[in-house]
């Protein structure tokens, strides 16, 4: 019958409101947090879960609005419009938002995830780096993290590619993540430089990992998701941001301690989305293992990524100093007895 499998039986249908009345009230009555429903945003997905999400718990009496985005630009647009106060986001949209607003719109307040991107290729057409000549490699979006990484890598390997059009020794195609598997199956592309879980998805369809982006970075760590806050909100409600950051730090810690539970929890949250379903184990497991959830925004890798984008001609020379405000994060880390993180000289100057 209709709704026979419905999960909420009415009673616990309004937990968010009843719950918000419980805790101590912070300086803001309400905060809107944005995130994407994918693996590199797992701390948000898990930490903002209805009921026992750790970020929710930290926010106590402040009502939480959530907004799920499917692309960075919309998130930045919403942040600029004051519709979202804090959002999880990838590095390049943050850099672009920072650059275009002349350093007025946002600040990075914490890290969230590292790694998770790789170059996967069709082994029948590309078996080694040298075979890349003439190949068609996809990235999710012009100028996004993976796109810049691919362009940078190709130029280091000696391939010439026009960054805007993608024409060159290697053809770079920009195809939405959701269409990449179909394009791969159809033989339209020979490979893709993509984040998880798309990479794992392609591997499950017979692709092979040619290169893990981590191999190109020191410690294998590079920022893939971090947390930004609107500058106005940050100034007015540092306590709210602090609560979110604390929740994030605790969520990351929980994930680190309970990786299997984290997967289950993430998958359950995913399945609860409209039209959502659990990721199959052959995609979820490798993807989850490939991403590292950490509080450090890896500021130096952001700097390098920005330089790469500038080199590729996809970003104008930008001064990133002031893009970080890690004081809150470091305060929280100190409380939790964890080491401070470094802003690579890009922090706010007081």
């Amino acid at each position, binding site marked *: *019958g*209709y*709704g*026979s*499998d*419905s*999960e909420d039986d009415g009673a616990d249908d309004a937990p968010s409101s009843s719950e918000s009345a419980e805790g101590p009230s912070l300086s803001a009555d309400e905060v*809107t947090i944005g995130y994407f*429903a*994918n693996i590199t945003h797992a701390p948000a997905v898990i930490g903002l879960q209805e009921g026992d999400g750790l970020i929710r718990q930290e926010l106590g009496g402040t009502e939480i*609005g*959530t*907004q*799920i*985005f*499917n692309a960075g630009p*919309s998130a930045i*647009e*919403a942040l*600029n*419009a*004051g*519709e*979202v106060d804090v959002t999880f986001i990838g590095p390049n949209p943050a850099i672009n938002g920072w650059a275009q607003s002349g350093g007025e719109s946002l600040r990075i307040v914490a890290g969230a995830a590292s790694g998770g991107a790789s170059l996967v290729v069709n082994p029948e057409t590309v078996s080694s780096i040298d075979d890349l000549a003439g190949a068609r490699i996809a990235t999710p979006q012009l100028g996004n993290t993976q796109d810049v990484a691919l362009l940078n890598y190709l130029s280091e390997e000696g391939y010439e590619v026009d960054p805007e059009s993608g024409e060159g020794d290697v053809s770079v195609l920009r195809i939405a*993540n*959701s269409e990449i*598997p*179909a394009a791969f*199956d159809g033989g339209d592309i020979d490979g893709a430089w993509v984040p998880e879980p798309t990479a794992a*998805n392609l591997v499950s369809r017979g692709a092979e990992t040619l290169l893990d982006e981590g191999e190109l970075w020191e410690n294998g760590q590079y920022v893939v998701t971090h947390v930004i806050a609107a500058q106005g909100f940050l100034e007015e409600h540092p306590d709210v941001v602090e609560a979110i950051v604390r929740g994030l730090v605790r969520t990351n810690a929980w994930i680190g301690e309970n990786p299997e539970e984290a997967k289950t929890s993430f998958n359950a949250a*995913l399945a609860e*989305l*409209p*039209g*959502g*379903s659990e*990721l199959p184990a052959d995609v979820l497991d490798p993807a989850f293992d490939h991403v590292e959830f950490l509080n450090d925004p890896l500021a130096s890798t952001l700097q390098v990524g920005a330089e790469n984008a500038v080199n590729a001609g996809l970003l104008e020379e930008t001064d990133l100093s002031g893009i970080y405000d890690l004081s809150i994060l470091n305060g929280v880390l100190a409380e939790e007895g964890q080491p401070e993180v470094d802003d690579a000289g890009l922090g706010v100057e007081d």
Partner: protein
Amino acid sequence: MASSDLTTTPPSSPSSDLAGLEAGLDALETPTAPDHEPGRVWRVLLTKVVPPIVAIALVLIVWQLVYLAEVQPHYLLPGPADVWGEVNEMWREGTLLEYIWTSTSRGILGFLVAVAVGTPLGLLVARVKLVRAAIGPILTGLQSLPSIAWVPAAIIWFGLTNGTIYAVVLLGAVPSIANGIVAGVDQIPPLYLRAGRMLGARGFTSVRHVLLPAALPGYLAGLKQGWAFSWRSLMAAELIVHSPDLGTGLGQLMENYRTLQNMSGVLATIILILIVGVAIDLLIFSPLERRVLRGRGLLARAS
């Protein structure tokens, strides 16, 4: 001398492959036999209900065959059963009607507002030369702007609320509806306007009693296109503005399925959207159209 009995002999047509088509094209012109017979209900069933069912059945069969032949791997092209399973699941979870209702109510409300705005706008463009010269072509230009173009602006003005969704829907549908009424008004035979004028219809009286009814057939056609624009703009807007507080619509649903590479889900959503579109046509536009055309003697009727 060849005697052709006009009541019974069909028009002679070349016996080529095209003959069937030609005969079809002549169909409306050929007088239909009067149907006083009691078999009338059956006839209606046969001509109105059976053809769409046959059409749908055919599509399903071809689909199933393609599926079985595995022209594409099953995860790319799921079969009807998979898609049905997906719909069924939404049904059991009790979310199906919510998705449909969220989108449909938004679509209809947005459409109604678009009609309320687009109609006077269209009338002004159609009837006031200066306005037409000033914004007529801009209307067509606006109509061809993709909805996505409005999203950043709408978010700035209206935030992540239903306001943004409606703004995008309006900006998509209003120019289309306005253009529809402009076309309708342009096609009014001047004789009616003159007759209305001689009867003393001026200004709004003239609009109400002459202009609008005279333009109605063209206007309705415009409304139909306007509905399609509303609905598509809505889908685009729903992709962008996705907050649990606002309820989930079919647009978000499809996007989520796409993100998760769930082809059965994508197809299920497509079918749901199709069903809504067909239902709106069958329940609203078709009867309206038929009434308008029949009242004016523009519909050939049986008997």
